[in-house]
């Protein structure tokens, strides 16, 4: 079995890993059913599927984080059974997790070398680790000071650190589970280049992403999962993104963005003037109207998230904020929620959901007041609310008695949306609404955002995905290094104009 016996079409590359008949059951719920898969050297093999299809679970099995309930994994033809992730690493299989798993209080360099510190005599060689870390991140197209404490980094920066850390392990197969979900186009491009480089060295790559054009760009093979089953495995050249979407969802996803009538000019709901979040946003001014969807574009670090956090009282800020004609100043989220302004964090795992608590507790956490009868929480009403939320937001889970952390990434996002909508807010600020969400669910969430605006609510969408902003917003404000530098509307809402404003390059020509 050392020579690969089946040279099918272009796949003459040697097989590194064969999985056959893999199944995985959690409790009584079977999340993977009879999956077979081959990873070849020098090939990028993309795994696509809806949220909860089982992609991450499959990858965790291959990387030794989970034991399969049934089935077999062979490496170079020899059956293996991993006792844990370290065992898999010793076989050359490494995994970049979908979740960020870093020690928040250590520096970037310390995280990258955690557990395999470089040594000089008896002490650790900080100098070498620092420069190694800096180089590893530069290779990924970023620049982060290796001495920064990880808890100070943005999600995108943490993702780069995590990738750098994994690539440091000697590897034959690298698994990327949604590595680009929080990266900007620039960083994504750099990562894809890194992947091409390691592919050229004969490494096998498994790649998960919900961004189908990106899959088209990088993948040699595409395998589709749906509801834990393998739908098919195709040569990437045979598939267009639209075909991938159809295979994933099981129906045509013709139109991603909902129709929006050009909103007539209505009264201002939120007026912001001379607003400052020290260190992050300066002199911000904008107006949000009733029934409007207002986008905020900008590069990572432009201060969009911080501006919004300042507005709802999560950060110290000063300036003038007028809500429905009355000046307001929120010092904490309690007061902003009470006034009808809800903010959905981009960091749903760190700031949005209690991962170790069940769905019911998470859903009602921000709106518990509505569920109090006498002194007690009315659990029955909470349960009914959960049933309704599961239905309305199409949260897919085998059972509702599950911890929020066990939901698939996309379903967690839907739960977070459901949680904040329990408060029936008038102004909804959504930070990265579809990060890590599959195309079918994206369509749903866009429809849902449009419906909220239709109902007369006012929406702010902060997003790094320009097509998304262009697709759903009435207007887009662009931020650069803490300032709002421009506004685009109508036929000016193009990626080109936004990028020019966001980067400041060619700014003169754009005006």
């Amino acid at each position, binding site marked *: 079995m050392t020579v690969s016996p089946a040279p099918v079409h272009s796949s003459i590359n040697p097989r590194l890993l064969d999985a056959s008949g893999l199944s995985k059951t*959690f*409790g*009584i*719920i079977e999340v993977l059913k009879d999956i077979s898969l081959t990873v070849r050297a020098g090939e990028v093999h993309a795994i696509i599927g809806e949220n909860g299809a089982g992609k991450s679970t499959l990858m965790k099995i291959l990387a030794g984080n989970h034991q399969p309930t049934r089935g077999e994994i062979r490496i170079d033809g020899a059956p293996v059974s991993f006792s844990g992730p370290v065992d898999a690493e010793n076989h050359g299989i490494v995994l970049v997790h979908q979740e960020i798993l870093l020690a928040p209080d250590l520096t970037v360099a310390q995280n990258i070398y955690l557990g395999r510190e470089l040594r000089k005599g008896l002490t650790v060689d900080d100098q070498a680790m620092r420069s190694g870390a800096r180089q590893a991140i530069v290779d990924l197209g970023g620049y982060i000071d290796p001495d920064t404490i990880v808890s100070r980094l943005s999600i995108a920066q943490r993702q780069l650190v995590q990738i750098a850390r994994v690539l440091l392990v000697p590897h034959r197969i690298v698994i990327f589970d949604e590595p680009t979900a929080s990266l900007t186009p620039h960083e994504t491009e750099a990562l894809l280049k890194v992947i091409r480089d390691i592919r050229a060295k004969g490494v096998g790559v498994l790649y998960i992403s919900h961004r189908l054009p990106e899959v088209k760009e990088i993948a040699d093979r595409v395998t589709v999962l749906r509801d834990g089953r393998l739908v098919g495995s195709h040569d990437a050249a045979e598939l267009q993104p639209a075909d991938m979407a159809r295979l994933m969802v099981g129906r045509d996803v013709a139109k991603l963005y909902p129709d929006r009538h050009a909103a007539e000019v209505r009264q201002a709901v939120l007026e912001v003037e001379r607003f400052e979040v020290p260190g992050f946003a300066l002199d911000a001014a904008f107006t949000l109207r009733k029934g409007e969807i207002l986008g905020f574009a900008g590069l990572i670090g432009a201060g969009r998230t911080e501006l919004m956090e300042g507005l709802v009282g*999560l950060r110290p800020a000063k300036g003038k904020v007028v809500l429905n004609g009355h000046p307001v100043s929120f010092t*904490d*989220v*309690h007061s*902003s*929620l*009470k006034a009808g302004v809800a*903010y959905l*964090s981009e960091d749903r795992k*760190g*700031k*949005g*959901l*209690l*991962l*170790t*608590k069940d769905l019911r*507790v998470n859903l009602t*956490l*921000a709106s*518990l*007041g509505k569920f*109090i009868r006498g*002194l*007690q*929480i009315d659990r029955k009403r909470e349960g009914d609310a959960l*049933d309704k939320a599961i239905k309305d937001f199409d949260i897919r889970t*085998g*059972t*509702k*008695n*599950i*911890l929020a952390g*066990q939901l698939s990434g996309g379903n967690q996002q839907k739960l977070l949306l459901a*949680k904040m909508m329990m408060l029936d807010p008038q102004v909804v600020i959504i930070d990265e609404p579809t990060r890590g969400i599959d195309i079918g669910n994206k369509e749903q969430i866009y429809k849902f955002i449009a419906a909220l605006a239709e109902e007369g609510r006012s929406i702010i969408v902060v997003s790094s995905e320009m097509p998304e902003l262009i697709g759903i917003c009435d207007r887009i404000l662009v931020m650069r290094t803490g300032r709002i530098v421009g506004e685009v509307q109508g036929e000016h809402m193009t990626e080109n104009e936004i990028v020019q404003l966001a980067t400041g390059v060619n700014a003169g020509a754009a005006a």
Partner: protein
Amino acid sequence: MSAATTDTAKAPKTSRDWDMAAIAPFVALALLLVLGYFANPNFVSVANLTNVITRSAFIAIIALGATYVISSGGLDLSVGAMVAFVASLMILFMNTGAIGDPTLMLVAAMLVALGLGAACGLANGLITTVGKIEPFIATLGTMGIYRGLTTWLSQGGSITVRDRELQQLYRPVYFGDVFGVPIPIIVIFATAALAAFVLYRTRYGRHLIAVGSNEEVARYSGISVQKVRTIAYIVQGLCVAVAVIIYVPRLGSTSATTGILWELQAITAVVVGGTALRGGVGRIWGTVCGAFILEIVGNIMLLSNFVSEYLIGAIQGAIIIIAMLVQRSLMRK
């Protein structure tokens, strides 16, 4: 059974894990009772058991408050010193003779104790939340303060209830019973029932658990983290006061060394009961069970001949480590 996998199905793996962690202390308690029987058949007599449980009352009640503080992600090392401090001030208040009627005086003294306990808790809470000092350090500091003030008040000796009549009137609060059930035991269960209701059924309890399991999520959900934590310390102070109220009539006096190391026993009871030290999980009945376990272990050692009772401290130390190991292995799949 067609739609067995939807809504009504349970996630057996996860719920079973959690339940096991919750049940473990009760299983341990049952095993201890059996062990005690073999060590000395007198152990399981009603008289001995009521006695043991009565004696566990102080630690049990203080540990209920500690369950709140610990599940909110905090820690309170000052409770032992707080017992001594509140008890001294309570007795000094009774000794002023400010109120002539003994019954009224007693009620007033109890209210004074509760007020003092709440104030001491509030101080701990504000220092950790508003002052943003690590709970370990903050309460290490107040522990020194409360203990030092007690030593000063008692001039290094003891403080005794002077009024004979008052002492007689107060005695039954520790030594009395209702239908044969000693009052301290009633107080344990009543306090625990109240604590369980608040923690599991009310909005405050839900907020407390949220703050303990992820402070940021709580903040982004509009929960005032500082307020929730501060209240947990006040609850701890009130529990200390309740413990003081049943402690004082026992000896009718208190001294500078009252309550030494009680904070460690209370924390042990909480941890043995299955509450995670990192916060986010609170088990009220587990804590009560943990306090019983500690007292029973001591009692078995006294009654049996094969282990010296001088080893009680060592055994209690071993118990906390074993409890942590058991918890850990139950948490893992």
